[in-house]
C-alpha cells in the first residue's frame, strides 16, 4: 500500500471573475521511505499538490489517500489529528513560533495531541534531534536570534519530533545560502535513510532533484514526468 496516493486531483481557485486551474488532474503514488522531489517551474502546481498531500488544502475534484485512507470527507478535527500524527512540515519561510525558544519550538508539536506529556523518552528524543541538527548551543535562543540556516534546522527538528511517516518540505533551501542548503539536504537524506521517513519536496532546486530517488515533474498543473531512479 502506498503511503500517499493522489487520484485525478484538481484544484481551481476563483480569482475575481476568472477561475485559475492550478492543478488540472494529477495522479501518482508515493511509497514509504521515498525521498521524492515534486519539481517544476513556478506556477506549475507543485506547492498546491504539496498542500493537498499535507491536508492543509483540499482538491476541488479527485481524492488524496494517506495510508490508503481517503481524506476528502474528514472533518476539521479529524484532519488536524491525522496531520499531527502523520505529517511533519518544513515551510519555505520556516514558520517558527517567535516567542518560543529553539527547544520549545521543537517540543511544541508534542504538546498538541492527546498524548501531550513530555516524558523522559520524548525529552531525550528532542535532545537527540537538537544534537542532530547541530543546535545544542542554541537551545535557549529565540528564532530572531538565529540565522536562516539555524531556523531551517529548527524547522526540520520540529517536523521530525513526532516521528511522522511523511515530511513535507516546501522549497526547503530557497531561503538558504548554497553551503547551508547542502548541509540541510544532507541532514534530511540521513534522517530518511536512518528513520525511513518519507520526504516529499516541492522544489525547482536542481540539487534536490538530483538527490531524489523519485521525481515527479509538473508543468501547467499536469504531471509531465514520474519516475524512480534505478535502485531506489
Amino acid at each position: 500500500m502506498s503511503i500517499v496516493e493522489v487520484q485525478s486531483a484538481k484544484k481551481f481557485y476563483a480569482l475575481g471573475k476568472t477561475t485559475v486551474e492550478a492543478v488540472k488532474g494529477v495522479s501518482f503514488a508515493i511509497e514509504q521511505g521515498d525521498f521524492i522531489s515534486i519539481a517544476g517551474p513556478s506556477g506549475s502546481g507543485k506547492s498546491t499538490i504539496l498542500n493537498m498531500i499535507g491536508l492543509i488544502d483540499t482538491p476541488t475534484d479527485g481524492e488524496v489517500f494517506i495510508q490508503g485512507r481517503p481524506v476528502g470527507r474528514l472533518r476539521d478535527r479529524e484532519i488536524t489529528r491525522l496531520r499531527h500524527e502523520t505529517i511533519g512540515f518544513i515551510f519555505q519561510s520556516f514558520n517558527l513560533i517567535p516567542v518560543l525558544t529553539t527547544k520549545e519550538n521543537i517540543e511544541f508539536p508534542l504538546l498538541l495531541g492527546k498524548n501531550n506529556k513530555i516524558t523522559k523518552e520524548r525529552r531525550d528524543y528532542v535532545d537527540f534531534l537538537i544534537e542532530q541538527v547541530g543546535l545544542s548551543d542554541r537551545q535557549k535562543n529565540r528564532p530572531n536570534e538565529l540565522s536562516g540556516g539555524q531556523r531551517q534546522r529548527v524547522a526540520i527538528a520540529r517536523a521530525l519530533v513526532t516521528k511522522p511517516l511523511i515530511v513535507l518540505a516546501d522549497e526547503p533551501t530557497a531561503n538558504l545560502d548554497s553551503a547551508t542548503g547542502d548541509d540541510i539536504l544532507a541532514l534530511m537524506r540521513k534522517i530518511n535513510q536512518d528513520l525511513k521517513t518519507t520526504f516529499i519536496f516541492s522544489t525547482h532546486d536542481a540539487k534536490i532533484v538530483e538527490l531524489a530517488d523519485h521525481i515527479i515533474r509538473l508543468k501547467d498543473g499536469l504531471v509531465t514526468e514520474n519516475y524512480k531512479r534505478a535502485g531506489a
Partner: protein
Amino acid sequence: MGTTLKIAVRNLVQHQGKTFIVGGLISLGIFLTFIGNSLFESAAQGVKQGYTTSVTGDLMIKARSDRPFNLFGSEDFSLDAADAIPVLQNYDQILATLRSVPQVATFTSVISSYANLNFEAQGQALDLEDMDRGDPMFGIDPDTYFKTFPGVRVLEGRLLQAGERGIVMSRTRLDQIAADKKIVLKLGDEIHLNAFSETGLKVRVVPLVGIYQFQVPNKGFEGVSFVDLQTLRALGAMTIGTPDEVKLDASTQSILQTSSDDFFSDKVASVASGRRVDFGHILGDTANRDRLQTIDEGSWHDILIRLKPDSDIPGTVAALNTSFEKNHLPAVAVDWKGAAGFLAGMTDVAQVLFNLVILLLTVVAVIIIVNTLVISVMERTPEIGTMRALGAQKSFVRRLFITETMVLAAFFGVLGLGLGALGVMAIDQLKIPIENDALQLFFGATDLGAHLSLGQVTLALFDTVVIGVVSWIYPVSVALKVTPLKAITTE
C-alpha cells in the same frame, strides 16, 4: 507554566505597544469606576446617615394619598394650600400596629409645615420675595423626638420641652438670616411666623428658645426649625373640622353655584316682600365657627421610626404596609428615602448616570480593545496557521487567545483596582473640604470622603472579567478562521 499561558504571557510582553494600549484602557476604566463608585457610595452613606439620624429615621408612616408627599411636603412643589400634607387618620390604630413590630426601636410623631419668617418686628418691612413656600417647620413632641433623633446638638439655649411654646432654629438658618437680612436673632427674641392655609393667613409669635446644629450636617434639611405643636397646628389650620361629605339640597347648591356677578343681576330670586331676614342673627352666631377652629390636638402628619440595629428596612416597610392593608388603615410606610424626597435620591440618580457614562466609555474601550486584538490576530496569522498545520486543534487556538486576553485583563484590571484603592485611601486621608453648597448636599458631608468596600472591589473584579470575556469573543472568532494554508501564503 502551561504552554498556552507561557505563549500568552510572552506574546503580551513581545507586543508591548498593544499590550499597554489595551491594558491602559482596562486599568483606566477600572480605576475611574472604582474611584467614582467609592465616592458615590461614601456620598450615599453620608446622605443616609444624615437623614436617618437627623430627620427621617429609618422609615416613616404617612397618610395614604393620591398625591406625592414626603416629610417636607408635597413633591410637586405646589404653593397651593390644598397641597398641605394630609393628616394621619386612625392614628391610634396605626400606633397599635407599630407597637406590634419587634424591629421598632423608637418612634415619634410630627407635624410638618412651612411658615414665613416675618421680620417686621425687627424693623424690616415685609419683603414679597420672602413670600415663597417658607421655612420648613417641624411640630414635635420633644419627649419622643429628641430620643428618636439624638443627632440634634444644642449650641445655645435648650431644646423645646413638653408643653413649652417656642422655636428652636439651626445655626445655619440664623447665619443665613444674618447674612441676607442683617438681622441677628438671639435667644429670647420673638419670631413672627406667617402661614397661609385653607382658612387664610395665620400669624403666630414664638420665642427663640434654642439654637441647634445637626451632628451630621446636610444642606437638604439644615433649614428646619422645631416648633411647638400648638403653634404649628394653628399655622397649618389643623382644626377639628369634619372631613365628612355633606349632602346639600338643590336650592343651597344653586346658591353655591351662583357667581358673584349674578348677585347684582336679576338672576337671583329676591326674597319675598314683607319677609324679614335676621342677618344679624345668622352672621352674629360664631359658635360653630369657633368650635370648628379648635386645634385638633390628636392630628399628626407623619410618624418617624428608628429601627433596631441591623433591622431589615425594606422588610419592615413591607410588613407594615401589609398590616395597614389588612386592617384597612389609610396609611402607608415608606423607607427613609421615601420620607426624605428627591434630594436624598439625588446621589443614587447621579450614581446611575455616572455608571451609564462609564458603561458607554466601557463600550468604546471594548471596541478599541477588540480592534487592537483583531489587528494582533491578523499580524499573527502565520503563527496561528503554523500551529494549526502542526496539529493544534481550534480549541487550542481558542484557549491561547482566551488566556492571553484574561491575563491582560486580570493584570491591568488588578493594577487599576490597586491604583483605585490607593486613590480612595488618599481621598479619605486628605479630607478635602467641600465648599460648594450643592456638592455638600450631594455628598451629605462637608468634606470629601471615599470608602473602600468589598462590594466595590468585587464589582471592579467582575468588570475586569466581563471586559476580558467580551473582548476576546470576536478576536478569537477571527483567529479560529485562520487556516494552515494562510500560514503558508501569508508572509
